[in-house]
């Protein structure tokens, strides 16, 4: 069992965690709370993709072992997750007049509602996309890499989405406005920033990426109502590791945590007898260890003393 093989697995899992982390981090900084419904937003994206795929069907040719219809369905799933998040924001969060912990608790309620609705609609059983099964890509096997075309599809799509986000943040004011708003909402409004709109965009981007992450998680694994919630803790670890509020930190954190979780067997190989059942535990310990050295995460902003 080679390092490279674990790394390949890690890359796929990381891609999913990264998508989840970016969204969580964005919402964390804009809406100002740890959104415990984020995992379930991923679930929403996955199931929406499932439904959309059922409607669109396996139309057209296939790319990377996936019918082109799947990618279409993926976009729909992403859009649905974003739409659900926007509606939730309008109906639930916006009218609230409470601090961040209150919002956090509310988001637990929202998570329950999402999950209950999905369970009502689809049952508690796990489901798979009807995209067939694939075997590892032959050409890579000699190098000790066992990756399927689906795996490649996940990594590539995630990379495209992340690159798109990067462009968006670099070439528009949105990223800066988001930061300004997170910093001081009153002053942001006084400066003329339409905070409602910025908030809405953050939700759209955050939830959309989460939706995509969920859809990939379904492809990587299976769909089931608790799927998103199960990875939420790991995503939190990634976001914290990267530093709350930093999109690029979240990418880095997601990558590191995803890799750590999937590379756990290496520890046993080098003689550290920690089973893979402790994979998440090791991820959390790494997170805490990093926080000890850098209390605001890898890319988090240092808190400048007491200020002037």
């Amino acid at each position, binding site marked *: 069992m080679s390092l490279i093989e674990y790394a390949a697995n890690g890359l796929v899992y990381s891609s999913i965690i990264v998508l989840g982390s970016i969204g969580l981090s964005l919402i964390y900084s804009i809406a100002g709370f740890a959104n415990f419904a984020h995992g379930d937003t991923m679930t929403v994206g996955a199931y929406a993709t499932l439904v959309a795929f059922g409607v669109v069907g396996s139309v057209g040719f296939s790319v990377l072992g996936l019918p082109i219809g799947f990618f279409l369905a993926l976009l729909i799933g992403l859009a649905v997750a974003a739409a659900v998040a926007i509606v939730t924001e309008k109906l639930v969060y916006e009218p609230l007049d409470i601090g961040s912990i209150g919002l956090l608790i509310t988001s637990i309620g929202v998570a329950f509602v999402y999950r209950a609705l999905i369970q009502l609609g689809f049952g508690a059983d796990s489901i798979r996309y009807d995209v067939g099964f694939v075997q590892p890509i032959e050409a890579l096997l000699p190098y000790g890499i066992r990756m399927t075309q689906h795996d490649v599809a996940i990594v590539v799509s995630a990379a495209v989405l992340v690159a798109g986000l990067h462009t968006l943040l670099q070439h528009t004011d949105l990223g800066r406005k988001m930061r300004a708003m997170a910093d001081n909402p009153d002053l942001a409004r006084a400066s003329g920033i339409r905070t409602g709109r910025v908030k809405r965009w953050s939700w759209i981007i955050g939830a959309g990426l989460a939706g995509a992450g969920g859809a990939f998680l379904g492809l990587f694994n299976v769909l089931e109502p608790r799927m998103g919630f199960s990875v939420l803790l790991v995503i939190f670890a990634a976001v914290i590791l990267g530093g709350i509020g930093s999109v690029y930190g979240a990418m880095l954190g997601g990558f590191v945590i995803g890799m750590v979780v999937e590379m756990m067997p290496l520890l046993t190989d080098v003689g550290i007898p920690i089973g893979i059942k402790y994979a998440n535990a090791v991820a959390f310990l790494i997170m805490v260890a990093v926080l000890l050295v850098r209390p605001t995460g890898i890319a988090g902003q240092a808190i400048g*003393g*007491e*200020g*002037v």
Partner: protein
Amino acid sequence: MSKDDVVLRVEDLQKSFGALVATDHATFEVERGTITGLIGPNGAGKSTLFNLVSGFYEPDGGTVTVNGTDVTGKEPYEVAEHGLIRTFQTPRKLEGMTVREAMLVGPRNQPGESFIKLFTDPGTVGEHERQHLADVERILEEFEIDHLATQPATDISGGQMKLVELARAMLAEPEVLLLDEPVAGVNPTLRNKLAEQIRRLNEQGTTFLLIEHDMEFVMSLADPVVVLDRGSVLTEGPPDAIQSDDQVIDAYLGGGGV
């Protein structure tokens, strides 16, 4: 320059933030019983110096001595235990408390701050609490904010917050009190009263180190005045001398003077 009874000695203190040198080999002493003024242009490093002295920043070099003890690099609470208390330039809000409660945090070494004593010695706790409460009532009156006593401590105006900040620090009854622009934003009438307060406390033995841009205020209160510029001490002397010092006028006072 050497002084008789030094309570605070800052020696060759250095601090940089990246390329920016905020404190540049600053050296001065504060003599017991004085009100020492600390002035200098915006960004001269005055607040940074306070942060270094009170333990909120770790200096890159140099030493801070309080009452003969070297406190360089100590935690803020340890520095405070040596009798040095500072206020913040931007006043701190205490959520979920009334103004009166927020003031009661001030006094140091309250027996009621020990969890054990709450149960072993409730009588003493109550006694001290009553005493502190009386002190709070008194000082709030003096600061003309007694009508705010039971208001939430967050729901007060900018100037009122500065007053609470100052009053609380006074309640701690430290030997040395570092005030960072105590009267910025405070109404002129009240400013005069605060000056009297400071003077009175000073007569009772508290030593002050005072940052303030209000020249009328500083010059009437402080002696000596230390001038800081670009992180190091430009000059030090009695107020008159400082006010007529060309260097100071250039760097700080500007054409308008007082």
